[in-house]
């Protein structure tokens, strides 16, 4: 097993890993697409995108930069993980957030979860790009 991992390690490069990670952060699944992991790319795009869009459609809050509250800062770190969806949030969520109702609160958690999941997929894309993982 260790030998297999070492052999795979020789096929990847640091540049490929970073490029896949950045692409995967900007558009969920794009990093895997560049690395020709078609099924993973499709699943990650649909799942992260689905969660992000559902969260926004349920009128969840999107945390902005420069928050004073520690929880808001953590929320921002989770939200920014969605990459492109974070920057397009105001276009998708035309009605604005409404966390006075439970549905909006669920939407906030869904969007943050999408960001955290995307960060995990970004790490995986980096590892595949480096050749440490298949």
């Amino acid at each position, binding site marked *: 097993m260790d030998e297999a991992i070492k052999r795979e390690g020789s096929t990847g490069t640091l540049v490929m890993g970073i490029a896949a990670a950045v692409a995967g952060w900007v558009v969920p699944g794009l990093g895997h697409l560049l690395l020709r992991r078609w*099924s993973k790319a499709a699943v990650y795009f649909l*799942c992260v995108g*689905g969660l992000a*869009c559902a969260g926004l*459609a349920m009128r969840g809050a999107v945390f902005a930069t420069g928050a004073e509250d520690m929880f808001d800062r953590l929320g921002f770190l989770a939200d920014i993980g969605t990459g492109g969806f974070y920057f397009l949030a105001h276009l998708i969520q035309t009605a604005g957030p409404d966390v006075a109702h439970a549905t909006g609160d669920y939407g906030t958690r869904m969007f943050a*979860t999408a960001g955290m999941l995307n960060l995990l997929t970004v790490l*995986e894309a980096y590892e595949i790009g480096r050749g440490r993982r298949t």
Partner: protein
Amino acid sequence: MNTLFGGLSHFQALLLFALLVSLTFAFLSKRGASERAKYVLWAFLAFLLVAVGIGWLMYPFSQ
């Protein structure tokens, strides 16, 4: 988008959340279609069971 997701009930939102997170975890952690399918099913049911269980435990406090 709002018509697709905006009218979800709380339980439908739970189902969607559990399905999408289970799928992502399965593709991150398992190899092979059958292993992934088993993991999706297991994680999806675990999400539902835990959510309904916690809801049931909290029910007396809502009265």
